[in-house]
C-alpha cells in the first residue's frame, strides 16, 4: 500500500477545514497490518458522514477480523476535490492515506438519493470506472449498502454488489467469500457469482432488466423469472455490542456525541415511513447492556453527550429505567442524555424530567405529520391532537421553550382542508405552550414548523402511488403559508425542486442510472447542498438519457404492475403492503403489533427472514 500523504499535505494549506483530511482522531484504527484491505465511503463530506452509525458498526466489525483492515473515506469538499485533481492526487483513505483504487473492497453506503452523484464523483476521483461492467480484476470490489438499496436499480450499474439489510454478519460473509474466491484464482465474474449466493447480496450484473417499463420483473413478488433477494437481519441485537470506541472527530460534526443504539426496527406502522417497514422486526437491547455501553462509551470517547438512538426510542420498554439509572450515574458530570426521536403519545412528564441537559436547551422535536385526525388515520400515525397538546404542555411545564414540529404535504387523499388544519393545529400548540409557561418566560417560546413534501418510497403501503405534480406542490405550499399563524412561528419547507428529484431517484428503475450519470457529467455534485443543486441540470440530464424527470417522480403503479424494486424483499410482504394501502384509503388504522396482535406483515415466523428474532427487553415473549 502506498501512502500519498506527502502529496496531500501541501494541499491542506490551500483548503477550508483541513481537519477533514488529517485522520489521527481518537479511536481511529491506524497502522493495521492486514492482507485484505477495505475502504468505507460515506458519500458526503466528513462532518456529515462521521455521524453515520452503520459505518461505525462496520468499521469496528471489519477491523476486528483477522488480517482485515477497514479505513474511512469521505468525499472531499469541492475546494479539496479541485486541489486534488489539479495535483493528480486520487481519492484516499484517511488512516493510511492509501489510494482507494488500491484496496480490495470499496464499501459505499447510500444514505439518501441526493448523494448519488457524490458516489460517481468518488469513483471517478478514485480513478475507478463508474460502471461495474467496465471494471476488471485489478479494481477493488465496489459494494453498496444502506437505506437506498431497497430500490437499488437507479444505482445498480455502478455497483458490483449491493447488500440488502443489516451488515454485522453479512459484511463478514462478503469479505470471506471474496478472499476465498481470490485465493483459488477466481476471476471477477466468478467472484460476483459467489457473492450472489450470500443471503442478502444482490449482484446487479446477474439480473438483466426485463425491458418492462419501470424496471425488472416481479410485481408483488409473483414473477419467478428473477430471484428475489431478501434482506439480512441480525436476530439478536445483543449479539453485537454498540460501538463504544467509535472514532471521535476533532472538528464539529453533525450529531457530535456518542450514539448507543437501543432499539432496532419499529412496528408503529406509519404507512409513509420506509424505515418503519424495512427495518422490521423490532429488537431491543436490554437496560443492563445499554447502561454498560453508555458508561463505557463515554469513558472511551470523552464525549459530553450520549444519544440513545433508534427509530422511536420512547418505544423502548425499559426506557424510564435506563434514564433513571443514567441520571444517577452521570449526576454532576455535565454529561447529558438525549433522545433523538420522541413519540408524541409516549412523552410523559416523567420522561420530560429524566431527559437532561442540552435536550432542554436545543428544543424538543415532535412529528404529528398531518393536520387532521382523518389524514393521520390514513397514514396510520396513531397520535391525536390531544396527545400532541398534552406533550407540548408537559414539555413547556418541564422547562422546554423551543419545539419543532414536522409535517408533510402531498400525502395520499390530502385535501386543502388537511393543509389548513396544520395552521390551526399550530395555533393550538402555541396556546398550549403559552398556558404552560410562566408569563415572564413566554417571550422565549419558539415554535418551529418544518414541512416536507411526501415522497412515496419503495416497500411502503404508498409505494404504488406517484408523487403529486410539481405545480401542485407549489399550490399546496401556498395554502400552507396562508394557513399559518402570523406571529411566533418559524415556518420552513423543503424545496419542491429537490423533492421532485428525490422522488424520481427513489421511484425509478435501472434506466434512471443514465440520468444520474448524465447529471454528474454535467457537473452535479453535492445535490443535498442547496447552493449546488439545480433541477434544470437534472431535467436536462434525464432528457439526455431519454427520460422525463417529473413523470418518473409521478408514476403510479397498479396492484399487479411490476415495480422496479419487486426483486428486493424487506421481509414485509407486498400483500400486506397492499392491504395497508387499502386500509389507508378507507381510513382504517392498524395497531402496533408490539403491543397488540400480529398484523401479518410477514417478517416473523416461518417464511420470514430465516432467523430467530430475539425481541429483548421487556418485549420478550410478547408475541
Amino acid at each position: 500500500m502506498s501512502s500519498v500523504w506527502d502529496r496531500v499535505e501541501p494541499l491542506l494549506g490551500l483548503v477550508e477545514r483541513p481537519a477533514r483530511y488529517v485522520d489521527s482522531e481518537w479511536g481511529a484504527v491506524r497502522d493495521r497490518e492486514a492482507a485484505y484491505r477495505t475502504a468505507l465511503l460515506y458519500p458526503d463530506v466528513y462532518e456529515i458522514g462521521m455521524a453515520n452509525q452503520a459505518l461505525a458498526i462496520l468499521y469496528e466489525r471489519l477491523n476486528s477480523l483477522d488480517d482485515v483492515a477497514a479505513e474511512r473515506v469521505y468525499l472531499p469538499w469541492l475546494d479539496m476535490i479541485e486541489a486534488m485533481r489539479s495535483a493528480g492526487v486520487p481519492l484516499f483513505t484517511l488512516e493510511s492515506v492509501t489510494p482507494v483504487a488500491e484496496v480490495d473492497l470499496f464499501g459505499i453506503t447510500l444514505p439518501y438519493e441526493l448523494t448519488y452523484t457524490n458516489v460517481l464523483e468518488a469513483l471517478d476521483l478514485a480513478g475507478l470506472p463508474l460502471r461495474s461492467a467496465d471494471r476488471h480484476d485489478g479494481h477493488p470490489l465496489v459494494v453498496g449498502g444502506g437505506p437506498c438499496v431497497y430500490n437499488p436499480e437507479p444505482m445498480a450499474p455502478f455497483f458490483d454488489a449491493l447488500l440488502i439489510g443489516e451488515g454485522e454478519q453479512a459484511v463478514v460473509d462478503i469479505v470471506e467469500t471474496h478472499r476465498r474466491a481470490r485465493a483459488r484464482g477466481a476471476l471477477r465474474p466468478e467472484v460476483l457469482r459467489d457473492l450472489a449466493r450470500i443471503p442478502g447480496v444482490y449482484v446487479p450484473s446477474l439480473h438483466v432488466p426485463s425491458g418492462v417499463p419501470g424496471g425488472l420483473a416481479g410485481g408483488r413478488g409473483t414473477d419467478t423469472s428473477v430471484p428475489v433477494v431478501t434482506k439480512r437481519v441480525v436476530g439478536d441485537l445483543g449479539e453485537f455490542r454498540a460501538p463504544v470506541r467509535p472514532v471521535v472527530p476533532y472538528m464539529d460534526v453533525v450529531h457530535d456525541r456518542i450514539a448507543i443504539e437501543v432499539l432496532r426496527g419499529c412496528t408503529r406502522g406509519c404507512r409513509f415511513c420506509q424505515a418503519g417497514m424495512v427495518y422490521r422486526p423490532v429488537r431491543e437491547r436490554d437496560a443492563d447492556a445499554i447502561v454498560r455501553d453508555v458508561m463505557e462509551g463515554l469513558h472511551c470517547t470523552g464525549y459530553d453527550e450520549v444519544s440513545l438512538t433508534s427509530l422511536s426510542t420512547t418505544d423502548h420498554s425499559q426506557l424510564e429505567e435506563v434514564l433513571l439509572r443514567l441520571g444517577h450515574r452521570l449526576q454532576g458530570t455535565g454529561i447529558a442524555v438525549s433522545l433523538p426521536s420522541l413519540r408524541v403519545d409516549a412523552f410523559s412528564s416523567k420522561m420530560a424530567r429524566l431527559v437532561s441537559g442540552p435536550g432542554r436547551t436545543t428544543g424538543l422535536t415532535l412529528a404529528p405529520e398531518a393536520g387532521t385526525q382523518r389524514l393521520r388515520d390514513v397514514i396510520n400515525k396513531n397520535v391525536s391532537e390531544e396527545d400532541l397538546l398534552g406533550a407540548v404542555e408537559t414539555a413547556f411545564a418541564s422547562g422546554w421553550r423551543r419545539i419543532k414540529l414536522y409535517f408533510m404535504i402531498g400525502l395520499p387523499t390530502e385535501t386543502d382542508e388537511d393543509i389548513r388544519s396544520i395552521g390551526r393545529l399550530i395555533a393550538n400548540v402555541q396556546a398550549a405552550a403559552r398556558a404552560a409557561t410562566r408569563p415572564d418566560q413566554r417571550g422565549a417560546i419558539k415554535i418551529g414548523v418544518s414541512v416536507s413534501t411526501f415522497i412515496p418510497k419503495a416497500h411502503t403501503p404508498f409505494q404504488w402511488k406517484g408523487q403529486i405534480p410539481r405545480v401542485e406542490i407549489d399550490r399546496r405550499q401556498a395554502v400552507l403559508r396562508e394557513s399559518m399563524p402570523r406571529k411566533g412561528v418559524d415556518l420552513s419547507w423543503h424545496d419542491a425542486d429537490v423533492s421532485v428529484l428525490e422522488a424520481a431517484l427513489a421511484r425509478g428503475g435501472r434506466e434512471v442510472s443514465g440520468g444520474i450519470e448524465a447529471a454528474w457529467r454535467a457537473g452535479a455534485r453535492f445535490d443535498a447542498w442547496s447552493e449546488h443543486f439545480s433541477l434544470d441540470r437534472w431535467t436536462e440530464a434525464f432528457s439526455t438519457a431519454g427520460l422525463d424527470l417529473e413523470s418518473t417522480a409521478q408514476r403510479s403503479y397498479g396492484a399487479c404492475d411490476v415495480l422496479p424494486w419487486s426483486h428486493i424483499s424487506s421481509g414485509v410482504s407486498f400483500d400486506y403492503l397492499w392491504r395497508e394501502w387499502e386500509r389507508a384509503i378507507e381510513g382504517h388504522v392498524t395497531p402496533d403489533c408490539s403491543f397488540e396482535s400480529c398484523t401479518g406483515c410477514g417478517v416473523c415466523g416461518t417464511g420470514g427472514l430465516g432467523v430467530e428474532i430475539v425481541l429483548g427487553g421487556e418485549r420478550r415473549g410478547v408475541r
Partner: protein
Amino acid sequence: MASGEFRLRLCCGKRGRLRFLSHLEYSHAIERGVRRAELPYAVTHGFNPHMRLAFGPALPVGTAGEREYVDVWLIRYVPVKQVVEALTSALASELAPREAAYVADKASSLGASCTIGVYEAVVTGGGVGEAEMSHALEDVLRGGELRVEHRGKSKVFDLSVSLPKEIAVTSAGFHEVVVTVTTRMGPTGSLRPESLVAHVLSRSGITGAVTLVTRLDTLIEDENGGFRRPI
C-alpha cells in the same frame, strides 16, 4: 472560582498532522482528553453546565505548537505526575502534555498574560540560503514597519514593537533555512512569522516558500521586559 477548586496548568503540544486543527477543534480535543483521563474536572454552574477550561493564545490553522497552555480546574487535588500520565494515555501523541503544574487561584488568565510567541519557520526553495535570507531580513527590518494583507484586511505592524528579539536564521540543509522569530501578541493582532518571511522572500526575489511554522514557546512578559514560561 468556586472554593475548593484546584487550577491546574497544562503544557500540551499541537504537532504533526494535528497542527491543521482550528483553535475550537483543539479545545474540544483537550476537553475530551480530560474526560477520558478521568480527571476530577470542575463544571460551571450555569444553565448549560460545562467543563471549566481556559486556553492560551490561539494558533493559526496549520501552525504547530510545542508548548501550548491550558488551565483546567479540578475539584480534587491530583498529583501532577499522575495528571500527565493520565492525559498522555488519553490524548493523541501529537497533543500529549509535556508538563503540568498547579497555579495560584489569582494568577492572570493565559489569554491576557501570554503575549510573547517564539516561532520557527522552515523555509525551503532553490534560492534559499542562510546568508541570502539574513541579508533580505535585515533589509526588511530596516524599513521599520510591515504592511500585511490578510483575508482582505490590511494591517501595519511596527516591527520594533512586534519583534521584541533579534531574528535568527540558521541553515537546515540544502536549500533550507530555519528562521526563528519572537513576536509580541496582543489584542489588536499579532504578526505571523509566515507573513514576515513571505514578505522577505517576495521583496528579495528569493525563490522559496514557508513549509512549516512551529510555535516553540508561549511566554509571559514581565514588568521588566523579561520573558518567562507560564509554568
